[in-house]
């Protein structure tokens, strides 16, 4: 009910009225709402970037890696390649909570040119008092009411930055799935669902939407813990000329975790790197191969990783300059004073104290 007190002014510019923009509207609304509560407080500087960790990736022991690689060739048929990634950073702590910033980036390659749209940053002051309101309001804005009841139990404060970033990422993935026709959509991470951050129904809807638009989702994981015979699947590369895919079998997770894709190991060029690649299970095998070949023919690669996805990651990541700017913003607009309390680890242990985040 507090939310209704806010009137969003027209100066905020959101794109394309044809797509559902309720989530970014709510992001802005909740951001302003949360920051209003923190006015004239002190802020302890302590910024920390959160990596989207695959915490649920407990590897099943039955994984097998097919030794015979699937040879692939670049298919240069003009195809839109689009990628999405989000980033979050903790700017600092207040007496009652934390200040975090969230931003997402969509990058696409068309006609040999990369273009991008960045959304954010959105800045939140998350406290024990407002975390439920903020999270549930955003959940509700994105997710239909059918699933809303599942998530009324909001995460603890320290999990909030990741949750907020995940919400934004899923919304951006949905937007891509709805708007990209006959293209390749690249996700950062895996197609594991059934977690708090990625409910199965939500990911299923995104993949279904992409399929309806004749697009295929390819999810690249920068790091994986999946092992076959005790060895990481990305480190069992055959002596075969790239590009190729290695197929896996037996990847099953304990419920409620469900994998909505099939797992491959992709080595896309001669760089001695390979990545875990998840491809939508519902996509026929022939189309999967076709999709990877189109990706090869339409994108650039450095270290065997698609440039479109790399750019998405780079564009959404917060630089030190931006962190300073965000601090400047919250100081000027919301009267939050920066304080630099001593790091107790450093204070007590001197050069042996590596800071609180490493403790």
């Amino acid at each position: 009910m507090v939310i209704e007190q806010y009137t969003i002014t027209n100066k905020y510019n959101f794109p394309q009225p044809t797509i559902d923009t309720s989530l970014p509207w709510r992001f802005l609304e909740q951001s302003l709402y949360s920051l209003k509560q923190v006015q004239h407080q002190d802020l302890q500087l302590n910024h920390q970037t959160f990596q989207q960790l695959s915490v649920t990736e407990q590897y099943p022991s039955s994984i097998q890696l097919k030794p015979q690689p699937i040879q692939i060739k670049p298919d240069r048929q003009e195809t839109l390649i689009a990628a999405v990634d989000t980033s979050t950073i903790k700017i600092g702590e207040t007496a009652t909570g934390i200040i975090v910033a969230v931003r997402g980036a969509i990058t696409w390659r068309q006609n040999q040119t990369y273009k991008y749209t960045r959304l954010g940053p959105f800045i939140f002051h998350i406290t024990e008092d407002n975390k439920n309101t903020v999270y549930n309001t955003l959940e509700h804005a994105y997710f239909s009411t059918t699933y809303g009841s599942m998530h009324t139990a909001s995460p603890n404060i320290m999990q909030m930055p990741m949750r907020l970033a995940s919400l934004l990422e899923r919304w951006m993935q949905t937007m891509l799935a709805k708007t990209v026709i006959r293209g390749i959509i690249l996700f950062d991470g895996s197609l594991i669902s059934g977690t708090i951050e990625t409910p199965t129904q939500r990911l299923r809807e995104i993949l279904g939407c992409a399929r309806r638009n004749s697009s295929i989702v390819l999810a690249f994981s920068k790091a994986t813990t999946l092992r076959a015979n005790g060895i990481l699947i990305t480190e069992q590369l055959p002596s075969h000329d790239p590009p190729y895919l290695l197929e896996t079998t037996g990847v099953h997770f304990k419920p409620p975790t469900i994998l909505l894709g099939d797992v491959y190991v992709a080595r896309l060029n001669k760089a001695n790197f390979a990545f875990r690649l998840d491809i939508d299970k519902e996509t026929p095998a022939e189309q999967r191969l076709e999709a990877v070949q189109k990706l090869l023919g339409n994108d650039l690669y450095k270290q065997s990783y698609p440039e479109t996805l790399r750019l998405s990651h780079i564009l959404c990541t917060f630089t030190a300059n931006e962190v300073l700017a965000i601090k400047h913003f919250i100081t000027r607009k919301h009267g939050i004073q920066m304080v630099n309390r001593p790091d107790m680890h450093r204070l007590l242990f001197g050069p042996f104290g590596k800071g609180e985040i490493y403790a």
Partner: protein
Amino acid sequence: MKLYKKEGNVLQIISFPTECAEKGDYLLVEDQEAGKALIAQVIDVQFAAVPGVLEELLRTLPDGGEPLQGEDIDPMEIAPHITYIQDASLLICKIRATLENDMLTPSSSWLPSRSQSTIKKLSVPMLMKLAKIDGKLPIVLGGTKDAALLTIDASSIDGTLNIITGKKGCGKSHLSKLLMVNLIGYKAVVVIFDLNGEYTSLGLTNDCKRNAYYDKIHTLTPSQNFKVALDQLHLNTVMGILVNALHLPGTSAREFRRIWKMLKEKGKLNMQELGEAIRDLNCNQHVRDALASRFHSLVNSGFFTDSPGGATLLDESLLKAREQGGAIVINLKNTSNIDRQIVVEYTLGKLVDSLSNWKLKAVFLFAEEAHLYLRETYWDDIVTRMRHLGIFATFITNQPDTIQETIYRQADNIFLFNFTNEHDLDVVSRASRVDAETVRSIAHDLPPHHCLTLGKVVSDFPIVARVRALDLKTMGETRLFFKDAGAN
């Protein structure tokens, strides 16, 4: 603005884009608790080392060279803050003085509070008021960046050694004319060695009408209206000409001295008798030849006459100038190198003579490109011995390395125009009243007609000003072949 660092007498100050400070500006770093303030001058503006800027710039340049095109949907409007931080600058400032109880001291030994100090721009009028750069005999040099007038006191040029330097065509002669006419206005006697004949029409306005200085500008052109008779000369002056300008060897000089005394005793000290005495001289052939060749040089200069009536103009001009102030312009245009040296030797000798006898109180001497006519030993003579007699020199040059280092060390005021060449700036930075960094940094970026004034006239607070225009027929412009080509 925020105080970042202090190392020696250099302050580093963080400045944000809205607080535009430029090279040459003065800042007041005030520590209210300490009751003191530092006056510092910006000598360089750099980008602040903001962390993450490199990443920021790099990520807009993907492989392939073309900048990444895209749209930023920034509903909270953080982008201006990013730009604000990214464009922050670091001001490198030299501490010029400490202000305490309205008194200035040239100290930088205390440390103002980094967190509590307030930093604001100090306007030139305010600085001039604090530094007491004013006086009863104002000379308006020009306008400063903040639309104030830079006014110096004529008495701060009195008894000083001044250097006006800068690259060609940046306004050195213009400034020297400005100083000169202002000194005349205060009834000073000014002597100018005018190498290019550009001071001869200072009595006229741009449209060739007589101005207030018309009756005070006395142009003397050697061998035309400026001649001397031998009997008006002191032997030392003639010896100076022969030895220094005409390089007469010692033995021949001794012989000449003997001839001179002999002619003087007979009352026959004129060119004709001197020529005959040399011709009839019974001595070594080489000595006679040496004397004869010097005599012919004197004759050929056209500067010497046997008619006493035609050789009184310098005395008359000095006399007039002594009463009402005035400038004696020695027009050295179209004068050969040797003749120039003869004329300069004579003029300086005459001035020393007049000053020694208190016929004159003091003389302001303006010398353009003095290396072309001033012998090496004269430099030190002018700045040490002649200063005590009352000759206050202002050297004007576009080749700063032609002025000896000792002259720079003793210079009281330097009017510095733009120099691009590092070597030239290095030479000027040897002056004892300036610091090398200030000279190198500020003079390098001076626009045309802008002058960095250093030294006593500005109480050692270097100030940049655009030299004001003069309604004088200055004649200092370079003659151009293609000047009218654009009009056709």
